[in-house]
């Protein structure tokens, strides 16, 4: 396979059969990823796809990219390590809302401030589905689950506001209710030169509430383009992001019109600067020897 031949979505589909519950939103998400990757046109061996733990974290296995189904909440540190070790790779990270905003919640801020060129796809279903329906960080207040018999007392995390507040350069939302739009948003996120975040509202067919299924989501979806939203206006994006949980805005909330250098760019710059004074490999220990 070479980078010049035209790749089709099916070229990114692995032989592994998904074991998600029939009707799960993640079936559409993986289709959106295939389409986006085909549009980007990078061959599968140039892509590293890292995930945490959860239903949605199975997704790298369903692609032909190099995949790493890692540790709960730790997809982002591993993705960053991969990107630093091999900056030429296209690095994707994926997981659920629990993986991203609870167990791994502390990692997002640091990835954003480093601005590493990684695309993070969160399949937000507002529940821990794989472990059979416990409250997750994005579960709505009042939500009744097996761990909240009388309704949740906690306000949900707003993933969109969270990443916008930390200064992410690309923030978007998608849903299986609009696969064409979802593929386009994922493609745009991958093309963004820096950290890109896509919150994908992907319903859990087994433990999700009725209002969060495809029909319910369709009823509250609204495309940002149809609202005339200016995706270069960060404050307007934050304003719209506050509707999370009540309305489902689809599209790009924010795209930094002047993307700053990525961490990789800065590291290379620093390496170039210091390389002229660098010791040859055989003298590398001299750094630690007192003269």
């Amino acid at each position: 396979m070479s980078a010049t031949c035209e790749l089709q979505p099916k070229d990114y589909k692995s032989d592994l059969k998904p074991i998600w519950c029939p009707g799960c939103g993640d079936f559409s998400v993986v289709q959106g990823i295939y389409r986006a990757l085909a549009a980007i046109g990078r061959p599968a061996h140039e892509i590293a796809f890292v995930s945490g733990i959860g239903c949605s974290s199975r997704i790298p296995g369903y692609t032909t990219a190099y995949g790493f189904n890692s540790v709960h909440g730790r997809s982002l540190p591993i993705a960053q390590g991969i990107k630093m070790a091999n900056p030429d790779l296209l690095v994707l990270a994926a997981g659920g809302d629990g993986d991203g905003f609870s167990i791994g919640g502390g990692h997002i801020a640091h990835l954003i401030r480093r601005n590493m060129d990684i695309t993070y796809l969160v399949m937000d279903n507002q529940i821990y589905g794989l472990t059979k329906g416990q409250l997750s960080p994005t579960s709505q207040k009042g939500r009744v689950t097996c761990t909240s018999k009388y309704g949740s007392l906690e306000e949900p995390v707003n993933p969109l506001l969270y990443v916008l507040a930390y200064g992410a350069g690309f923030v978007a939302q998608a849903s299986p209710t609009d696969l064409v739009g979802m593929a386009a948003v994922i493609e745009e996120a991958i093309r963004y030169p820096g950290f890109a975040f896509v919150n994908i509202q992907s319903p859990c067919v087994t433990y999700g509430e009725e209002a969060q299924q495809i029909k319910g989501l369709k009823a509250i979806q609204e495309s940002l383009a149809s609202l005339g939203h200016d995706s270069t206006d960060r404050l307007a994006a934050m304003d719209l992001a506050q509707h999370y949980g009540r309305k489902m805005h689809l599209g790009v909330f924010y795209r930094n019109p002047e993307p700053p250098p990525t961490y990789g760019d800065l590291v290379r710059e620093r390496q170039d600067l210091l390389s002229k004074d660098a010791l040859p490999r055989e003298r590398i220990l001299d750094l630690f020897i007192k003269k």
Partner: protein
Amino acid sequence: MAIRGIDFANLSLMDALDLAILIEEEAEERYEEFAAQMDQHRTPVAAGFFRYMAGNESKHGLELSARRAQLFSDEPRTVSRAMIYDIEAPDYDAARAFMSPRKAMEAAMASEVKAHAFFVAALPALKNAEVRALFEELRDEEIEHQELVQAELAKLPPDSGLSDEDFVDEPAPQ
């Protein structure tokens, strides 16, 4: 059901045939996926029905491909799968674990109705007479497909009125 970037007014016969082939291919793949999902969840009758539907879609796709080859030989395709979504393929959320044969057939029927609606909606925008004739033919075929599914539904014993959930244990917390 969604489309992207299709200019119906200027659609050529070759592009129209290619779109029709892509629509059949998408439906075939989706039914195969549904069959695999049913296998995964030990629902063999629904899996068998979805495979039957995949076979039908494949047959129609091959017929259209033969026609396309006869008319346009191996002229390169200018339309792509990115332009269509869920035209004749059942929606992903139409599948459920432990689907009864009836539910599986109803999902297929909904897809055929959806495909018919697509061709009906596209017709007013078409300007090319040959493309119009093709779309009318495809629209009418969707009615035939509906009759095919209806015939399968008729073979089933009367509906018990029970839902699939009646046969499935409640999800248990761990």
